[in-house]
C-alpha cells in the first residue's frame, strides 16, 4: 500500500520530513550493503519485478507490490534501496507525486521490514518445510500490509489534510464512495481499511502461493528444507 497524493497538497514540513528520514535510512543502508554485489543484482531484479507485477490485472481495483516478498528476498537494507528506486520510477510516471517519494519509501519499506523479520522468526519457530515457508511468507505479508495501511492512515491524520485525499490501496473509480467531501478520519478508516485489508489478503495469498511455487522449482531462492 502506498500513498497516491499528487504534488502540492501535503504540508511541506511533512514531505520534507519524509525525505529527510528516508535519505538517512538509505544512506545507512548503503553503508550496510557495501560489498554485496551479488545481492545488488537480485535487488535490481526485484525493482523490475515490482514494476512489472503492478501491471498485472487482478480483476479487482487493487494492484500488488510484492514489497514484503522483496524484504524476504533481499533483507531490510537492500530492500529500502530497491523500494526507493521503484518509487522514484513510479513518481516519474505520475504514480504518486515526486514530493511523496520519501514518505512512500518509508511506508513501503515498513512492509519489507515486517515481512522480512516476521518471515525469519516464523521459519525459526515452526520450521522450513515448503508448506510452512509458504504459510510464513503469506502471514508475514498479511501483517506487513495491514501495518502499512494503518501507517498511511496515521500519516493522513498527522498531515491534517482531508483523509479522502490519500487513497492508499488503489481505490479506483468503481470503489469510490459518494460524497467524499464530508468524510472524517473515522469514516475514512471504515471505508479504506476494509479494502486495504482485502487487498492485503489477496497479496498475501499470492505471495504464499508464489513462495510455494518458487520453493518447488528453485528452492535455493528461498531458504527451505524441501
Amino acid at each position, binding site marked *: 500500500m502506498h500513498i497516491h*497524493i*499528487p*504534488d*502540492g*497538497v501535503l504540508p*511541506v514540513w511533512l514531505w520534507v520530513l519524509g525525505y529527510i528520514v528516508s535519505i538517512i535510512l*538509505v544512506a545507512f543502508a*548503503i553503508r550496510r*550493503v*557495501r*560489498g*554485496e*554485489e*551479488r545481492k*545488488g*543484482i*537480485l*535487488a*535490481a*531484479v526485484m*525493482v*523490475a*519485478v515490482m*514494476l*512489472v*507485477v*503492478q*501491471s*498485472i*490485472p*487482478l*480483476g479487482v481495483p487493487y494492484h500488488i507490490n510484492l514489497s514484503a516478498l522483496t524484504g524476504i528476498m533481499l533483507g531490510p537494507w537492500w530492500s529500502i*534501496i530497491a523500494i*526507493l*528506486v521503484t518509487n522514484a*520510477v*513510479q513518481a*516519474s*510516471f*505520475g*504514480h504518486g*507525486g*515526486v*514530493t511523496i517519494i520519501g514518505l512512500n519509501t518509508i511506508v513501503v519499506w515498513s512492509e519489507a521490514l515486517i515481512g522480512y523479520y516476521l518471515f525469519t522468526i516464523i521459519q525459526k519457530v515452526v520450521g522450513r518445510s515448503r508448506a510452512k515457508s509458504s504459510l510464513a511468507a503469506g502471514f508475514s505479508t498479511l501483517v506487513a500490509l495491514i501495518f502499512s495501511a494503518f501507517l498511511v492512515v496515521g500519516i493522513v491524520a498527522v498531515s491534517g489534510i*482531508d483523509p*479522502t*485525499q490519500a*487513497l492508499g490501496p488503489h481505490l479506483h473509480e468503481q470503489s*469510490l464512495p459518494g460524497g*467524499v*467531501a464530508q468524510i472524517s478520519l473515522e469514516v475514512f478508516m471504515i471505508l479504506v481499511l476494509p479494502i486495504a485489508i482485502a487487498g492485503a489478503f*489477496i497479496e498475501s495469498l*499470492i505471495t*504464499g*502461493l*508464489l513462495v510455494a*511455487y*518458487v520453493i518447488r522449482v*528453485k528452492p535455493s*531462492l528461498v531458504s527451505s528444507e524441501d
Partner: protein
Amino acid sequence: MSLSTIYLVDYYANSLDSPMHRASVTVKMISTIMALGCIILNTSLLSLVLQLFLIIGFQAASRLPIRRLLLWAIYPTFFGALFALSQAQYSIELSVQTLLRAVDAALLMLLLINTTPYAKIIPLIRKFSKTISNLAFFSYRFFFLFIDESEKRLTAFRVRGGLLGPLGTKIRNIAKLIGLLFVSYIESGEEVYHAVKTRGYRGMFSTETVAGREMTRNDYVPILLALFSVVILVVGIVGRGLS
C-alpha cells in the same frame, strides 16, 4: 502504469529529437525541480492555467504526442480530482487550484522523462550514490529484458482464461504466472551477474560519469521553462496581492 507506457516513454526519450531532448540532463533536472517548486507554491488559478499551457507548449516544441501525454496524466489527475472534490465544499477556486497543480506537476514530469533517456539520468545519480546508480542501471536493463517475456506470458494468460472463474482460482493462476516469471527473471539476473563478473564487475563500474561540458544553446530551453515558471509564479503572487 502499463508495460507499454514505459516502452513508449523509452522510445520517445531515445528516438525523438528536439532541443529539449538534446539539452543537458543536469540542466533539465534542475529546471524541472525549479518549475515543480513554482507549481507547488502557486496559489493563483490564472497562473496555474498559464503554467499548464506553458508545459503543453514545451511538450509540443519537443515533438511529443500531446494527446497521449494528456491520457497518461489521467491517473494523477484522477487523484487530484479527489482532492479537488473534497475541497469544493470550502472553495471552488481552491479545488480547481489543487486539480491544476496535480495536472501541471504530472505533465511536467512527463515532459522530463519523455525527453530524457533513463540511461542518461543514471550518471547523474552516480554523483550522489554509486550503489543506487548501479541498482538503477541494472533494473533498467532487467526491466526491458523482462518486459517482452511478461507481455507474451500475460497475453497467453489472458487468452487461456487465467482471469476467469472465481477469485480463488484467479489468485492461484496469477500466483503461478508471477512465480513462473519470477523464477525466469531471477535466472536472467544471475546470467547477467555472471556475464558482468567475468568482465571484471566487482560491485562498481569503473567508468566515469559523463564529463561536464560547456553549456549549449539547447540548454537554454529547459532554463527558459524554469524562468517562465518563476515569472508565472511571481505574476500570480503580484496579481493576488493587487486583488
